[in-house]
């Protein structure tokens, strides 16, 4: 079929019929073409912004909130990091040396 023929195959009456069908289905121009009785059953909502709460209700939670952090003290769970627990002497109340080693309970501040 040539292009000319294809164009000729849609008559004015057929186009009108198609538009009418679409209008009944409520899809022409994005507007529903309702009869008076239908409009009474389904009143059109006023064009107000969507409440903010509804937007938030659909927000995704990225990672579930853990329960361990704020829970009361529990026996320790196995941890993936190597750790060394030691009983140490209290730090002496006198300056330590430049090479560090202020005894147990001392700390060292540095950039990280």
């Amino acid at each position, binding site marked *: 079929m040539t292009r000319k023929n294809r164009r000729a195959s849609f008559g004015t009456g057929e186009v009108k019929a198609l538009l009418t069908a679409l209008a009944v289905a409520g899809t022409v121009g994005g507007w529903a073409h309702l009869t008076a009785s239908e409009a009474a059953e389904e009143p059109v909502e006023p064009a107000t912004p969507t409440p903010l709460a509804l937007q938030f209700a659909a927000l995704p939670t*990225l*990672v579930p909130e*853990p329960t361990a*952090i704020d829970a009361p003290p529990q026996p320790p769970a196995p941890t993936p990091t*190597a*750790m060394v627990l030691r009983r140490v002497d209290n730090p002496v*109340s006198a300056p330590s040396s430049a090479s560090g080693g202020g005894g147990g*309970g001392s700390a060292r501040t*540095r950039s*990280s």
Partner: protein
Amino acid sequence: MLQLDFWAMGCQMRAATEVETTAAEWALRAIPAQFELWEGRLSRFRPDSELSQMNLRAGDWVRVSGTLYDLIQRAREMAAATEGLVDPTILPALELSGYDRPFAEMQPRELRPAPPPELPAGLWSSIELDPDRSAVRVPEGTLLDLGGVAKGWAAAKSLESLHSNGPALVDAGGDIALAGPREDGAAWPIDVADPWQEDGRNVGQLWVASGFVATSGRDRRRWRTKSGWRHHLIDPRSGQPAVTDALTATVVAPDWRAAEAAAKAALILGRERGRSWIEQQPGLEGLLLLEDGGIVTSSGLDQYQWRAW
């Protein structure tokens, strides 16, 4: 005294408590798992972390955990307190400077491409927070880095769990939280690392009964590019690694946010303005170690028995 040493967040950590009860030991042993949990949530290097997932949705409102929400809120407060010198939105600039992977994966002296001339940050004030729904909106076009905030926050949080048992200390890679004084009434000794030496030497020592000590520096986490050495402390005013005559800045403060923010701000501001800025903040004392080997201290640092070796 019980002392626990462990590795987390790319740093050596230490937690200690003077109370040797079973409850205190449990609280101590639980800390590494907490750090692992926080790192999994807050690391920018883990694609599945909550922070990374949130950054992917920059421009949209997203609900976040209480942990991430709290961190972002604190980061905003720190940015406001420093007039934007400590800015969580520097991540695009940091990555363009070359720090786009865990530092341990960056080859020593690796020659990386020269970064673009400038990429200012400064979008921190556009971060939106909704406390009612624990929701956050990061401005489109930027990304958050909470690395500098997370260690101080984690140290403070961990100390809370230890402090109920008695005097305690948490050293999160140099960001230190102290609950004291110790049972004998003495303060805790805090060594200040020597940035000019890499053999574990210290440049001096402080004695702090309670509070927080933080150090920022450009002596570590630095790398070489075709346009010279770069480091990880971005000056948000330029979007480039800070150009400063200070090598490290250490601050003692009653609050972890103040210590963290002031140490970074002082380092960026340098010798004169950095010291002046610390002295203008109530309750803060500190010292700057300078590139030329000098040491500058705030006027009240002696209250912490500062002694240089």
